[in-house]
């Protein structure tokens, strides 16, 4: 009996191997070598693992190859996203270092779980096969269910995990159902094969040959699952509760990482597999984006809890990011990458400020806790103001340019009405972002909130604020990279 080894190229999944490998090693190291009271060391080791993952991407730069029977691909698009994901994970770990012991929820498994989740982001950015994308989404979801319920003594954390799990299970069901229908139509789950099937169908299209109905239903079901993960209206209902209940670093991680990874996979699906049936799905996604922008931003106006407000604002921002996908152009994907980076830095920074204000066992999420912050902690207040301006899209911040790029991309693709809604909702958004700034600088302190400023988190906030300004003034630093990624994806 001859045993033939499958034809695989391990280099293609090198970042994946490094990150999953370091997560596995970290689980064991944490269990046997790290003393119970000193789990910060695990956090530092996790940062090292992320660094190695980033370094593993360097030799692959410029490579464009797929392996494992065409299931994974490495290209500049994936590698650029990897850099963003690693930055997100690193900031999340740094802001958790002091937060976890302060809240009494320090457990070594937190950091490997973050690494596993980041690994699933990397997988989603690289996979070109529906089954692999499904596994990536599930890996991501299961990790997040656990992380959401990590603040065990707090009832709201358990409730959030439960809600997320139940609704997430439904979303997973939709996804599998969609894949089954797509397979029923095309007899394949490979994105490239699906495209081949569709072009073949189109070229032979006569009145006698029916359209790809099953594929369209399947695609719609897959879109539902993605909308749930990205929190597009009307599949966003879980977002405020889950974001409020989850430990704050996890909320920060979810609000940027999950959206980025799920959208990356969605971009792969729509650009590789479904460009020929654009007429069917572009309007649907455009309507979803419009509803998301409206509901997210209008919902945020009514919130007095800052964490909930940021949850609604993240729903709104998901709508803006989707504009980059709907545009279906090279500029759109470029804008998507830039927006993701800008939004990640800004949102992680804003959540870091909330973490600083969060006392042990007590939340300081009400607007009142921000009153007079400008008097007590001027630098912190200035940083928070910068993040709020960037979220609102006020120049010269990175958030402004991000919005500008997605609007421009959507406009070029003839989606003027969508841009109009985007601009109007941005104007609404300015109200609730400015409200926090007004509270911080023009109101007297309502109650004494002692900020927990440790060195690591202070530096994180400073670096995030600096980066938001830097990309606001010099977007070229990142745009060149993004442009190269688009060429690799074949836009």
């Amino acid at each position, binding site marked *: 009996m001859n045993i033939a080894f499958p034809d*695989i190229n391990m280099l293609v999944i090198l970042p994946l191997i490094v990150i999953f490998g370091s997560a596995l090693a970290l689980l064991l190291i944490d269990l046997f070598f790290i003393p119970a009271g000193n789990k910060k060391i695990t956090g530092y080791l996790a940062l090292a693992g992320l660094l190695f993952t980033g370094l593993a991407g360097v030799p692959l730069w410029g490579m464009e190859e797929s392996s494992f029977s065409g299931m994974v691909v490495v290209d500049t698009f994936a590698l650029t996203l990897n850099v963003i994901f690693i930055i997100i994970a690193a900031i999340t770990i740094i802001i958790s270092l002091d937060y976890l012991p302060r809240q009494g*929820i320090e457990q070594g498994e937190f950091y490997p779980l973050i690494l596993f989740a980041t690994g699933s982001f990397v997988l989603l950015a690289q996979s070109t096969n529906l089954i692999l994308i499904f*596994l990536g989404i599930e890996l991501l979801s*299961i990790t997040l269910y*656990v992380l959401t319920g990590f603040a065990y003594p707090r009832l709201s954390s358990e409730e959030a995990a439960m809600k997320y799990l139940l609704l997430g299970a439904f979303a997973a069901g939709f996804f599998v159902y969609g894949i089954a229908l797509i397979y029923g139509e095309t007899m394949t789950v490979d994105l490239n094969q699906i495209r081949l099937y569709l072009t073949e169908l189109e070229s032979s299209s006569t009145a006698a040959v029916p359209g790809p109905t099953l594929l369209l239903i399947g695609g719609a079901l897959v879109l539902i699952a993605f909308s749930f993960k990205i929190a597009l209206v009307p599949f966003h209902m879980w977002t405020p509760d889950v974001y409020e209940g989850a430990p704050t670093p996890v909320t920060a991680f979810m609000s940027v990482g999950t959206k980025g990874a799920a959208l990356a996979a969605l971009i792969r699906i729509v650009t590789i597999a479904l460009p020929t049936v654009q007429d069917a799905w572009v309007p649907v996604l455009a*309507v979803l984006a419009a509803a998301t922008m409206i509901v997210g931003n209008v919902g945020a106006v009514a919130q007095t809890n800052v964490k909930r407000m940021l949850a609604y604002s993240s729903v709104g921002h998901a709508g803006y990011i989707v504009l980059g996908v709907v545009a279906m152009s090279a500029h759109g994907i470029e804008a998507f990458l830039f927006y993701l980076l800008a939004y990640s830095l800004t949102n992680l920074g804003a959540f870091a400020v909330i973490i600083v204000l969060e006392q042990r066992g*007590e939340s300081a999420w009400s607007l009142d806790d921000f009153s007079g912050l400008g008097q007590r902690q001027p630098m912190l207040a200035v940083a928070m103001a910068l993040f709020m301006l960037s979220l609102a899209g006020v120049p010269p911040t990175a958030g402004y340019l991000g919005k500008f790029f997605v609007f421009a991309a959507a406009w070029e693709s003839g989606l003027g009405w969508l841009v109009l809604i985007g601009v109007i909702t941005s104007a609404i958004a300015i109200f609730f972002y400015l409200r926090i700034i007004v509270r911080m600088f023009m109101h007297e302190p309502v109650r004494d909130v002692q900020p927990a400023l440790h060195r690591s988190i202070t530096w994180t906030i400073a670096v995030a604020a600096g980066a938001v300004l830097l990309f606001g003034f010099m977007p070229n630093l990142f745009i060149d990279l993004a442009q190269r990624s688009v060429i690799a994806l074949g836009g």
Partner: protein
Amino acid sequence: MELLIQIIFVLISTLILGAAVMVVRTRNVIHSALWLIASFFGIGALYLLLEAEFLAIAQVLIYVGAISVLILFAIMLTHNVTSGEGHKFYQRWWLALLVSLMLFAVILVPTLVGQDWTITARPSEESAIAGAVEMGTAFMREYLLPFEIAAVLLLVALTGAIVIAYEERAQRRRILTLAQELALRKQQQQNHAEE
């Protein structure tokens, strides 16, 4: 022959769907679990109908054998769920149904309007991957990466279950807020004074 298979398919599908509806309809959680087993059996029968004997046996062994027993154990070890009376959350279920259907329509209608519904059956591929040998080869060759990722997924699920369920209460104690701590200290002082 063709007709016979169709009839069997309809019968099995009715069994699966009916049992699945009963899972959510019954008040008693144990009965739900038993209906779930019936539904799993039906799916095993469907696999047999598709001439995938190995899958059918695996389905019965794993789902009916292992998972159902696990579910029953979990139910019986949990307090107060075996009794039939629970909270009613569905007093306005028709409203929820209406809203969900409308939301569902938002997604499905635009894709379906103007589409042709005559779906032609596509010829099946020559190489089936339903047998044990074919599945084993596929896992080690074509589907190697999903196979490995599934392993990672299971490990994460296991770790997560331990993190959530196996609570070392000494480590994860409830953290008091400053106000609570002050109140506690005051009370302790009072107790001290009374003694």
